[in-house]
């Protein structure tokens, strides 16, 4: 068990962390290049700056969502706060970074109680978000498989981490939960750049590309048809 933990903490962690950082940079650069090429092909070459800014800030500070769906918006914001702050500013994680890479933000860490409460908050809000998605017919209709799986995957390291921190001192149980904690964390790191979680870095770009799509020349759709090999078929 300890050897497995060593592998997970060492090579596997380094692998997944490198994939995450490079993968996110790659996704960002690729969308930037592709977006620029799309701009070349577009009929209207002006960037709709106002629209992009409005969409991005609307996404970051969902004031409109507060009016339309107040519960959902509030829970979602709480979930994102817990999801980001807890893992980054947890004392043990900062110590891990200090020991393995030498970068340190140990002075900024959360106290243990606050970290535990934030973890519980994240778990609860995550479950609520999943339930909201399941309960609404509209959101069920537009959901893919990964939309259901991601909240569950994100909760695994939180739950196992909480178990390790609070509920067990028995070495075997602790090791098993720690292994689950690290493995699920690594899996999240690896999947991040290739799934919808990439929105953490793509945010303004995705708004820009969406806005750009409306500016293509009128016959652009035909070319998509040709590229897909579906010429002459009706929609």
């Amino acid at each position, binding site marked *: 068990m300890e050897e497995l933990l060593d592998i997970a903490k060492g090579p596997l962690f380094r*692998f997944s962390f490198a*994939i995450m950082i*490079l993968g996110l940079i790659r996704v960002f650069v*690729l969308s930037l290049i*592709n977006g620029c090429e799309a701009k070349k092909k577009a009929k209207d070459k002006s960037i709709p700056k106002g629209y992009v800014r409005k969409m991005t800030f609307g996404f970051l500070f969902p004031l409109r969502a507060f009016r339309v769906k107040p519960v959902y918006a509030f829970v979602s914001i709480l979930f994102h706060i817990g999801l980001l702050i807890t893992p980054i500013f947890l004392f043990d994680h900062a110590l891990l970074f200090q020991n393995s890479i030498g970068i340190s933000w140990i002075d900024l860490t959360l*106290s243990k109680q606050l970290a535990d409460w934030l973890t519980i908050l994240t778990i609860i809000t995550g479950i609520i978000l999943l339930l909201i998605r399941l309960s609404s017919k509209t959101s069920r209709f537009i959901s893919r498989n990964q939309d259901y799986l991601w909240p569950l995957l994100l909760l695994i390291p939180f739950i196992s981490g909480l178990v390790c921190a609070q509920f067990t001192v028995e070495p075997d149980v602790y090791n098993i939960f720690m292994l689950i904690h690290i493995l699920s964390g690594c899996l999240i790191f690896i999947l991040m750049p290739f799934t919808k979680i990439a929105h953490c870095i793509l945010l303004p770009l995705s708004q820009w590309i969406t806005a750009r799509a409306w500016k293509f020349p009128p016959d652009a759709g035909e070319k998509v048809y040709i590229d*897909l*090999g579906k010429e002459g078929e009706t929609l």
Partner: protein
Amino acid sequence: MDRINKAKLILWTILGIACAVAITRFIFGLGVTTNLTDNTPWGFWIGFDVMGGVALAAGGFVIASFNYIFGKKVLHPIARAAILTAFLGYIAVAIGLLFDLGLPWNIWHMIIYWNPHSPLFEVGWCVMLYLAVLTLEFTPVVLEKYPNIKLLSIIHGFLYKIRIPLVILGIMLSTLHQSSLGSLFLAMPYRLHPLWYSPIIPIIFFLSAICLGFMMVMLESMTSSYLYRKEQEINILEKIKKYASYMIIVYLLVRFCDIIIRGAGSFLFNISWGMTLFWIEILLSCIIPLVIFSIPIKKIKISILYFGAFIGVVGVVFNRLNVGGITHLNNLTEIGSFYFPSLMEFSISAGVVSVAMLVFFFFVENFKVWEEMPNINNSIKKSTRFDSFKVYLGTNKIINRTKFSFAFIIAFSLTFSFISGSEIHSSGFEKTPVTKARGADTLIIDGNRDGYGVVFAHENHKKQGFTCGYCHHMNKPDDKATGCYECHDDMYLTGEAFRHEWHSSSNGANINCFECHNKSESKGKNFKFSDKKAIQICKDCHNNIIPSDSRIKILKTYKTLSYTDAMHSLCIKCHENKLKSDALIKQSKPNLAQCSSCHKNFKSYKKVKKLFQDKKNNKWVVIPIFKQIEGNIVQ
């Protein structure tokens, strides 16, 4: 997927691996990434990247001279490609050299700090100038693409006019540094195996570079024809093949005549590791290519010709590796350590080569390097039916971009994870433990017991009126006048005066952390590491740890100086002060604060036994010279 894209995918993967290793090399240094030692400081990077790379780029000047100077116009279609290969080859040499230099940021020093006696100085300057010439030779190809911009077309016209002088300059510089890479080894006749060391090694280097240049151009032509699905340039290959065989024969003759005339012929058949390497080298670089090149091109398959050229290139590069490090005597005999390149060294070299190849493909696809541009878009396969399970990645360009970057990051991350933690940290410094000074009233201070000590008149210093505490500035607990070696316990490295482990261990002092460190109440159970300063210091528990008459009043750090530094700073400082304050000493012992006043030949003490003998007590005590002088004056 087309051939060229497959090749590019592989190159991007290699590049990913090399980038991860490169980060390790530049952060953690040469000791972690290479198998090089002080005994074999030159290895694969010098042998392959620098010496092999310069030789591999010889195609540029060889083809340029045959095309422009000797008027062999048949070679004209490949002249630009050959120059591009040389240009990229030299840039690769410069990049490869940066990895091998201990202080790569000082590479510009040779421009300002001249050392005209060094062959490396000549090589460095030649490579630098030749790179500039190659840049000027290749620039027109890039400028051609923008005929509408007036300034660029003026520059293009000027460069086109001076192309012949440039070619001549290029050939001159190449001749110089191709051979002076060999001259480097003239300086080390006792290092190189007799089969390789020769007074004419510069000429051998130059000849083999010409052979390699021809074979490299053949290889490059055939490879690019294969990758871009062009027709093989049979006419040109036929010509180059002929020139290459002549050159190989000349090289072979010179090599063997040299060995026999030097009298090293007996080593040819004296079975040893060196002999084996020599024959492998000759077989690869000369015999196999010569046999294959002697067959007319129409009778053999192009793949066999390719094999011949490839083996030849490998053989000549192997020659550079042999000269550059493998056949150095400390590597072949049992006196030195055996050197074989590490995987990381291989991957860095492969990465540098793949960058050069990727840039070559970029230029070939975007500029008019060949007579006709390669058509890379003719092979897009459009699936007739839309497959919803297959991810649609877009046009050919976008597919390539996506795939190559994906291969890069996967390779990078895998390598990054496999460079294991233990290898990332170097083995550290070698420790030199210090032992106690010997003697009684006169001490012989020889910390590392290497036989070179300093005689110190302890008793005499005491008589001068120094208290114990002045020099023994810190005592161990319950001790008096603790010896220097107890805290300054390494000859050259700093040490620790405070043993944290012992204080916190239950077998030692068994002290709770919070008896010394700050306990931060507001942060719950978290122990604040940021409060590194302990609230308690040694003095608070150990009363007499710093004597009242000590030189040191306040303890600023627990780090101790190395033994040599501690001794020097104590003695020299005091001697300097003495010289300033005491006029009599300044007159009698003007060298008191200089190295020679302590570091004397030990025998010289014995010769002047008078110095040691105190007549009254019959003890070995040094009598200060000025007292003797005083005595003489009295007498």
